[in-house]
C-alpha cells in the first residue's frame, strides 16, 4: 500500500512545500489540511494549493511513503496551533474578562478569556477555549485535570 502516490512532494529553499503533478506541473506553497483536526486528526488530510483548491486527498498518513509523511507532518506541526491545557495555574478573577495562567503541552502561557461563552463544550469532558485573540486552547479531559485546576475551571462552567 505504501508509496502508491502519483505525485511528488518536496520542500524548496523558501520553506514552501512544492507539489509536482504527474504531468510535471509544479505548485508552490501547498499546504496540508486536516479534515477533522479535533475529533479525528489522523484521518483525511487534503493537500490544498495556494488558491484553496484541493490537489490531493490522503485517507490516512500511513498510506504515504515515509519521506512524504515526514514532510507533511512537519508542515502540519508548523501550521497547527491548538495548545492543550494541562493545568490551570491562576486566574485573575472569576468575573470575565479574566486573565488565565496555564500550563500547556507547549509551555506556560497567559491569555485573556473574554467571556464564559468562549468556552465551548466539545464533548461531555472536553472543552475548547477561545482567547481574546482568537487562539484556540483545548482541554482534552477536564475530569483528568488536577483538583486545583478543576476547581478554578468549575467557576466558569
Amino acid at each position, binding site marked *: 500500500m505504501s508509496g502508491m502516490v502519483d505525485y511528488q512532494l518536496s520542500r524548496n529553499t523558501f520553506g514552501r512545500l512544492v507539489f509536482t503533478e504527474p504531468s510535471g506541473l509544479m505548485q508552490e506553497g501547498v499546504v496540508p489540511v486536516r479534515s477533522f483536526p479535533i475529533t479525528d486528526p489522523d484521518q483525511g488530510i487534503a493537500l490544498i494549493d495556494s488558491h484553496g483548491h484541493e490537489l490531493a486527498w490522503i485517507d490516512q498518513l500511513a498510506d504515504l511513503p515515509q519521506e512524504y509523511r515526514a514532510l507533511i507532518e512537519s508542515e502540519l506541526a508548523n501550521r497547527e*496551533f491548538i495548545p492543550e491545557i494541562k493545568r490551570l495555574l491562576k486566574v485573575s478573577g472569576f468575573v470575565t474578562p479574566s486573565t488565565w495562567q496555564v500550563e500547556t503541552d507547549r509551555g506556560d502561557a497567559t491569555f485573556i478569556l473574554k467571556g464564559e461563552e468562549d468556552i465551548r463544550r466539545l464533548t461531555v469532558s472536553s472543552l475548547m477555549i477561545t482567547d481574546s485573540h482568537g487562539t484556540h486552547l483545548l482541554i482534552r479531559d477536564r475530569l483528568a485535570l488536577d483538583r486545583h485546576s478543576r476547581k478554578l475551571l468549575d467557576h466558569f462552567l
Partner: protein
Amino acid sequence: MQQFIHLSLNNLPPIWVDGFSSQLIDEENVLAWLEIDLNTRLHFAQGIVVVTNHRLMAKMAGDEIWQEWRYQQGLLLTQRDYAGVGCLELFDSKARLAYWRYRLGNDIAVSRLIECFMQQLGYHLTGKLSLSTHTQVQCPNCATLLSSDQEECPVCDKQIRTPPSTWTLLRLWRFAKPYKGRLLTGFLLTLCSTAATLVPPYLTMPLMDNVLIPYQNGQPIDTDLVTLYLSGLLGAAILAWVLGWARTYMLALVSERIGADLRTATYEHLLNLSQEYFGGKRTGDLMARIGAETDRINIFISLHLLDFATDVIMIGMTAVILISINPWLALVTLLPLPIIAWLIHLVRDRLRIGFEKVDRIWAEVNNVLADTIPGIRVVKAFAQEKREAARFHAANQRNLQINDRVNRIWSLFTPTVTLLTEIGLLVVWIFGIWQISEDEITVGVLTAFLAYIGRFYIRLDSMSRIVSITQKAAAGTKRIFDILDHVSSVPESAHPVHLSTVQGQIELRNVGFRYGTRSITRDINLVIKPGEMIGLVGHSGSGKSTLVNLICRFYDVTEGIILIDGHDIRSLPIAEYRKHIGLVLQEPFLFYGTIAENIAYGKPDATRAEIISAARAAHAHEFILRLPHGYDSLAGERGQALSGGERQRISIARALLIDPRILILDEATSSVDTTTEKDIQKALDNLVRGRTTIAIAHRLSTLREANRLIVLDRGRIVEMGNHAELMAREGYYYRLYQAQARNVDTEDESFVSVVEHSVAGERE
C-alpha cells in the same frame, strides 16, 4: 526625528534592553521591534525582532547570541497568518533566511516593523529615504502610531481587559448629578425615618421599668404614664410611616429617571457607532444591555442600595443608643455581629457561584430552543423531532443536576441564619441575666436591648447580600459604559468640510482595509467618473461588499484614502455625506410602518406626490395599489406579507426619493427569480440614470448596463474593463463568465444581450 527614535528605544521591553544596548554599534537606533511569543516549533517562548537603521536583529530568550542581517540587495520581510498564529519571514533572492512565529494581537506592530524594514532597506540601496508620516502620535504603551483622530490606541484598547471593579459604580454619578438636590433630600428623609423606627424599642425600657415591673411588685398602673408611652409609640410609628413613604417615593422617582437617562444616552451613543461595532456584537446582547442591564442598575439604586444605606444608618444609630444606655452590654451585644456577618457572607459566596452556574445553564437551555424553533422546518423535514427533544432533555437534565446541588446549600441557608441569630440573642440573654442578677441593669434595659438587636440580626442577611448584588450591578454598569466609552471607529471630523453639491466622482487611492487581524482588501486604486456605472465582480469573499462599505464609510480605510470630488470622505460630516448615497441591499429591510412611511424613510418630509412618483419610477406603484390599504398598508414585521421582489422595489423607491448622486446596488437582484429580476431591472434602470453607480452582482447578466467592470480577487483588483475587453483577455472574468454560462441555462438569453450591448457600446 531624533526624539522619536530615542523614544522608541525606551519603549523596548525592559527584559531586552540590557542585552540589547550592548549590541548597538555607533549611531545605531532602534526603529521598530516586535515581541515574539512562540518559537519555530510553536511552543510558548519569548523572543524579539528589532529593526534598526543598520540591520535586522533577532533573539529568542534561550539563545546565546543575537542574530543579525544587514541591509542588502534582495532581502524581503513578509508576514502571513493562519488560525491565529502569524509568521514573519525573511527571504533573500535564493532562500528563506529565518522565520518567527507569534500569536496575533499586535498586527499593527508587525506591519510597522515590516514598513520600517523595507523603508530602511530602500534607504541603504538607493540612498533615498521615503519618509512616511512620522508626525503622528505614538501610543505610550505599545509604540503603535496613532492617526491624528484616534485618541485611544486601538491595540492597547483591545488588550486592557480587566474585570469590572466595584468602583465602576461611581461612574454612574455622571447620570445622578442632575438629581443631586433630590438625592440629598432622599438621604435626609432616610436618616429621619430610620431614627423614627428606633423610637419604639427605646420606649419599651421605661414601659417595662416604670409600669410593668412596679405593677408586678404590687403598685397600681399609672394610666397617664401608659398613655404617654403608648401615644409615643403610635406617634413614632406614624412618623416612620410617613417619612418612609416620602423617602421611598422620592428615591424611586430619582432612580427611575437615572435609569431612563442611562438608557437613552446608551441608545443614542450606540446608533452613532460604526458598522464595525455592530458586526462584532450579537443583537440579543446589545438589546439585553440597554434593556435588562439598565433596569438592573435601576433596581440596584432604588432598592438594594437604599436598603443597605438604611441598614448601615440603623446599625450606627442603634450602636450609639446601646452604648449610651450601657456600654458593657452594648459591647457584648455588638461583638457577635461581625462574626455572624462573616459567616453569612461565606455561605452566600458559595451560593452565588451556584446561582451563576444556574444562570449559565439556563442560557444553555435557551440556546437549544433558539436553535430549534427558527429551524423547525428543517427539523421536521428531516424528521429529527426525537433528537431535538433528546437534546432539550439533556440540557434540562444538566439544569436539574446543578439546581439540585445549589438547593442543597440554599435550603441550609435560611435555617443557618436563624440559628446564628438565635445564638447571638442567647449570648445577650446570658450576659443580661447575669447583669440583672448583679443589679447592674434593669429588666427594661435588657428588653430594650433584645428588641434592638432582634431588628438588626434580621437585617444581617439582606446586608450580606449587598456584596454580590453590588458586584452584579458593577458588572452591569461596566457593560453599559463599554458602549458609552466606545469611540466610534468612524469618527466625525473635527473641522468638517461642507459640500453643497456633489458631482459624484469617487477616487480610491491605495485603499486597504483590515478587519481585526485579517487583511481584507489591499492596494485598491480606482477612479469612478461622475455618472459612470461600475460593476464589481468576483467570488464571494473577494472584497466587493467591503469596498462598498468603505465607500459608504460604514468602516474607515486602514490604509490609503477615499476621495469624493477631490475631498477626503473622512473630512465630511458623516450624515451629510451619506445623504448623497442611495443604497439598495440584497435583503431590503422594511420598518414597521406604512408603505408610504417606508418609502419616505430617508426624507420624512416628502410630499405624497413625491412618494408616488418615486414608487412609479420604481415600478412599485401598481402592486402597492393592489394592496388592501394602498400606500397606507402596513409593512415590516407583523405587517403586510410582501414578496422579495416587491420589497426590493419599495427599497428602490426609497433610494429614488432621496435623489442621491451616488448609488450603490449591493446584490440588489440576487434574491429574486429571473422574471422578477427583469421587473426590478426596469426599476433600477430608472434609478441608475445620470448617477454614479456602483453595482455588485453575482449574476453577471445584471451588470449589462455597466460602463466598466472591476474584477476583484482576494481583496485586489485583478482586471478592469468592459465586458468585451475582459472576454477578449480570457482572464479571470472570462473564466467566471464561462462558469456561470455553463451552470445557469436560464440566463443564456440575458448573456447574449450582455454581449450585444457591449459590442454596441464599442461601436459608439
